[in-house]
């Protein structure tokens, strides 16, 4: 950006200068430099792709190749700078025409008719479609000259142009018809070759306005040269494609590049930006002249432009929007950020752009990119554009084409192809603001277009089939384009449904083999249900209106109502029976039961006390002699008699003989035993019997001491051997070996066996008699069983208690025991036999009363018990 080349005199001016130092015209630094770069073919830093720039530099037409006539026009304009003339203004107007308009100019001047459609008009219209130049088409739309011109009226310059084109083709350029996209190649050539007569007419009108015909030819040559140069400069187009170009631009560029490789000389798509650049260059060059010749008669062109502006002001806005991507500087200044391009591609066409951008010279718009690489109108455009998406929801592209019936779809252009066309429209607006012929200005009116459009524009239905929707559909087209589009027979064809229907009609249903159908994934076949998340549309915030943007979970759906569990217990019939049984048992347990009154112990105690008292009285009264003693039994028991006989028999118990006295009774019965045995001990003592005491009971030896003492036995004649351990075993051992069995006395001394009291006694058979004092029949039996066989025939006498006598009596009957004295009665009988008086005789009365009373009580008790039992039984029987 160092120097700025003047667009008029091509003089290089220092950077920052506003006017040309040579011609004094204002400079457009950025655009001028940009154009210089284009002309020089030099690589500009504004272009982001060096390869493209290099290619553009190679293909660009150098400045020296500017035709001479253009140089002369410029020089003349410079010379006549201070004196604006109608011709000059007309010349400038011609110069200011962009290439696309220059392409349009011959087409419009040719006044294509129905007859010429077959030859040239149809081609250049097709080139219009292929060139994606709605503005150019609109420029051609004013078809007033269409009816007038003929091929014969083609001026020379057109013929020259045609010749030049033929030369170009002859040089090896690929025929436009052979290009993949014919529509793009033809506009560059066809319009030049076709309606020459109309051009001539058009030029005549133009000359009439300007007052000079020659300049018209020059001008016509000029714009033809521009047209030629446009084809040459089409190579510069690629730099328009910044790295950040949107998809539709990229597609367009790709297609353009392909075409450019095939036919670099005639590629209308590339001409679009190129022409715009050149056009802008022309407009930029013509702007000063237009401004200077504001009062000249040539201002009629400006008038019609103003009129055009007034009429098509709404349409210029989208045109300016589309112009933005054409500006190379902003593209570069955007630092490869194609946001504004992207926004242009995606946003609706109603983006507002200051109207000044349209009315004012384009040079002013080109000055803006010098500010940080982006023009003001773009800067203004951007902030105005920013809030637009937030305010209006983005609508599907397919919904827009109804408003844009004159979309490029109707021209059979693809979306990518139509994008540059929209740019052309935007480019036309500023250019139209400068200098356009009146017939072009009339192009703003929609009325003359109808016939043209209806005749030339193919039906919308196939267009809709070819082009369902384009980003430009939202960019908005000028009203005059819309109006022209409205006149189209099938505006409804832009709908998605119609598109689908039309496409469905042309498409044959795929006939997949069964094996291939079976291999199709289920996801492809099965209808995919749209989730609620995708359906959910944001209602607030910056994402308002967008659906499925933010993943969200339906929290309400996550909560499931907890299952209800019945608290009622299901019980089977069997369980119910068991439960009732348990319940009845528990209820019975809880019910109070009548407890029979416990009998009081008082009567029993009284009875027991009464019995005891009776017994005591019965015992005491005889002792106290309050009761007379009962008569003694006259008949004594035989065993007692035998006992007394044995003891009294001196043959058995000689005086001073040794007698073994065994005390086998317990202290509890010592009273009876002492009473019963007292007479016996006393008799033995009277006979000087040596008594040897032994006992198998531990307490026996002590009781023996008491007994002997009570009986008055001389202890010198008594040997207390003490306790004999071992029970029956001890008795057996004592019977077999008394010395070893009872080696010591109760006092701890050695038993005086075979000495003293025990002199001559070493065995049991050495004792004269054995007297066993026992209250236990078992102990008495043990003595009989264990000791009696060892006595050697010596008498075994027993003094027993009353309770043990019945069980010991059989041993007497068997002869094992020679005599038994039992209890007080036996003792009393013994005393009676011995005629002694002892304790037994004294107590015999008490004992007898006691025994009698006891017998009576037993009988009474038995009687009472019998009576009570009989009564209870009788009651029970009665109750039963």
């Amino acid at each position: 950006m160092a120097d700025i080349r003047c667009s008029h005199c091509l003089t290089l001016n220092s950077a920052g200068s506003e006017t040309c130092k040579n011609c004094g015209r204002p400079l457009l630094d950025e655009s001028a430099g940009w154009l210089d770069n284009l002309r020089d073919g030099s690589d500009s830093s504004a272009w982001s792709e060096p390869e493209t720039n290099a290619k553009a530099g190679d293909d660009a037409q150098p400045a020296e190749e500017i035709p001479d006539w253009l140089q002369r026009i410029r020089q003349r304009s410079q010379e006549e700078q201070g004196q604006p003339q109608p011709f000059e203004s007309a010349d400038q107007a011609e110069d200011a025409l962009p290439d696309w308009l220059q392409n349009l100019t011959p087409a419009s001047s040719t006044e294509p008719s129905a007859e010429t459609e077959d030859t040239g008009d149809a081609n250049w219209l097709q080139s219009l479609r292929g060139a994606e130049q709605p503005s150019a088409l609109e420029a051609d739309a004013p078809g007033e000259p269409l009816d007038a011109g003929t091929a014969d009226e083609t001026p020379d310059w057109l013929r020259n142009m045609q010749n030049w084109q033929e030369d170009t083709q002859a040089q090896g350029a690929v025929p436009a018809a052979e290009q993949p996209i014919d529509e793009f190649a033809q506009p560059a050539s066809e319009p030049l070759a076709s309606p020459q007569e109309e051009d001539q007419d058009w030029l005549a009108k133009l000359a009439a306005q300007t007052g000079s015909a020659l300049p018209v030819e020059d001008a016509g040559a000029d714009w033809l040269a521009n047209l030629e140069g446009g084809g040459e400069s089409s190579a510069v187009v690629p730099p328009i494609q910044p790295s950040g170009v949107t998809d539709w631009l990229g597609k367009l560029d790709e297609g353009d590049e392909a075409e450019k490789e095939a036919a670099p000389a005639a590629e209308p798509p590339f001409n679009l930006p190129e022409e715009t650049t050149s056009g802008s260059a022309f407009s930029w060059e013509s702007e000063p002249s237009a401004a200077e010749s504001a009062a000249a008669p040539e201002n009629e062109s400006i008038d019609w432009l103003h009129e055009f502006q007034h009429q098509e002001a709404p349409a210029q806005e989208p045109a300016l929007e589309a112009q933005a991507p054409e500006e190379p500087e902003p593209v570069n200044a955007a630092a490869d950020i194609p946001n504004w391009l992207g926004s242009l591609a995606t946003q609706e066409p109603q983006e507002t752009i200051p109207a000044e951008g349209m009315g004012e010279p384009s040079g002013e718009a080109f000055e803006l990119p010098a500010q940080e690489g982006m023009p003001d109108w773009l800067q203004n455009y951007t902030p105005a554009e920013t809030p637009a998406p937030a305010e209006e929801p983005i609508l599907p592209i397919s919904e827009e084409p109804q408003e844009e019936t004159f979309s490029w779809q109707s021209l059979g252009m693809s979306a990518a192809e139509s994008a540059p066309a929209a740019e052309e429209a935007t480019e036309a607006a500023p250019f139209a603001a400068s200098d356009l012929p009146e017939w072009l200005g009339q192009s703003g009116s929609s009325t003359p277009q109808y016939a043209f459009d209806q005749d030339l524009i193919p039906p919308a239905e196939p267009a809709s089939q070819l082009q369902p929707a384009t980003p430009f559909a939202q960019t908005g087209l000028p009203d005059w384009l819309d109006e022209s589009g409205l006149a189209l027979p099938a505006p409804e064809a832009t709908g998605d449904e119609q598109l689908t229907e039309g496409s469905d009609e042309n498409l044959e249903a795929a006939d997949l083999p069964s094996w291939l159908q079976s291999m199709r994934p289920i996801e492809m076949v099965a209808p995919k249900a749209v989730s609620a998340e995708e359906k959910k549309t944001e209602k607030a915030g910056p994402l308002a209106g967008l659906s499925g943007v933010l993943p969200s979970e339906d929290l309400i759906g996550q909560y499931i109502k907890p299952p209800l569990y019945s608290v009622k217990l299901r019980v089977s019939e069997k369980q119910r029976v068991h439960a009732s049984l348990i319940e009845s048992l528990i209820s019975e347990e809880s019910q109070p039961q009548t407890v029979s009154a416990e009998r009081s112990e008082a009567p029993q105690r009284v009875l027991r006390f009464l019995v005891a008292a009776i017994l005591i009285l019965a015992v005491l009264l005889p002792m106290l002699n309050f009761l007379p003693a009962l008569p003694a039994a006259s008949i004594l028991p035989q065993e007692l008699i035998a006992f007394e006989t044995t003891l009294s028999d001196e043959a058995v118990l000689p005086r001073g003989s040794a007698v073994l006295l065994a005390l086998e009774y317990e202290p509890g019965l010592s009273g009876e035993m002492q009473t019963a045995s007292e007479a016996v001990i006393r008799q033995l003592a009277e006979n000087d019997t040596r008594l040897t005491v032994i006992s198998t009971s531990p307490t026996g030896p002590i009781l023996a001491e008491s007994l002997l003492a009570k009986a008055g036995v001389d202890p010198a004649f008594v040997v207390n051997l003490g306790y004999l351990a071992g029970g029956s075993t001890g008795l057996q051992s004592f019977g077999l070996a008394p010395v070893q069995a009872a080696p010591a006395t109760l006092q701890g001394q050695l038993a005086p066996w075979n000495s003293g009291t025990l002199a001559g006694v070493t065995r049991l058979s050495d004792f004269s008699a054995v007297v066993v004092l026992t209250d236990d029949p078992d102990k008495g039996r043990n003595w009989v069983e264990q000791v009696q066989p060892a006595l050697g025939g010596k008498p075994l006498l027993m003094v027993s208690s009353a309770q043990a006598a019945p069980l010991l009596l059989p041993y007497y009957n068997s002869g094992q025991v020679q005599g038994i004295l039992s209890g007080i009665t036996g003792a009393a009988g013994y005393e009676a036999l011995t005629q002694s008086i002892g304790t037994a005789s004294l107590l015999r009365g008490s004992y007898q009363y006691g025994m009698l009373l006891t017998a009576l009580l037993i009988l009474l008790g038995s009687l009472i018990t019998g009576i009570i039992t009989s009564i209870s039984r009788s009651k029970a029987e009665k109750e039963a």
Partner: protein
Amino acid sequence: MPSADLIWTIVGFVLTLLILSHIIGDNPLFRIVTYLFVGVASGAVAVIAIYQVIWPKLILPILRGDYLTIIPLVLSLLLVAKLFPRYSAAGNFTMAYLVGAGAAVAVGGAVMGTLISQSRALITPFDLSSAVQSGSPVMQIVEGAFILIGTLATLFYFQFSAKVQANQSVKRPAFVETAGKLGQGFIAVTFGALLAGVFGSAIAALVERLAFLLTAFRF
């Protein structure tokens, strides 16, 4: 009367009254006398066991040079192990020896001293020579027959074996049943005699104690 006898008479008198207090029911006084009796008896037994058994019959022989007494000493010590459950098995041999020896002695004495003797005594009344000597042989034979019947009836009473017949309740033979009934009568008379003996012994004790109470302080 010596003072010692007086003291022991007073003690005997009081203890006798305390025992008689059982007439009004179980009471602490009765229990005191009971415990006192048990305690005194136990002490007396311990002293007697030491001075009458262990020392003269176990230790003294060893001291005198009779080392064979060590065997009963060892057996006695093993018997002490019965007090400790962990080592009680050590006294099993001693217990076995005591039980074996005691059973043998008891069985021998019962067979020879009771069974044979009583059987012989049962037959003896039927000995006419002896009956002639007694002067009343019929009565001896009748007495002998009565004893025999009583003895057999009692033995039949304890005969519990019987034949099982179809559709009939188990029942001893009629002879055995009748003899058993008769033996039951003999048993009842025997038990009555024993009960009378018990009552006689109790009355004798009561008489002796009352006599003691009456004569205790009769100097």
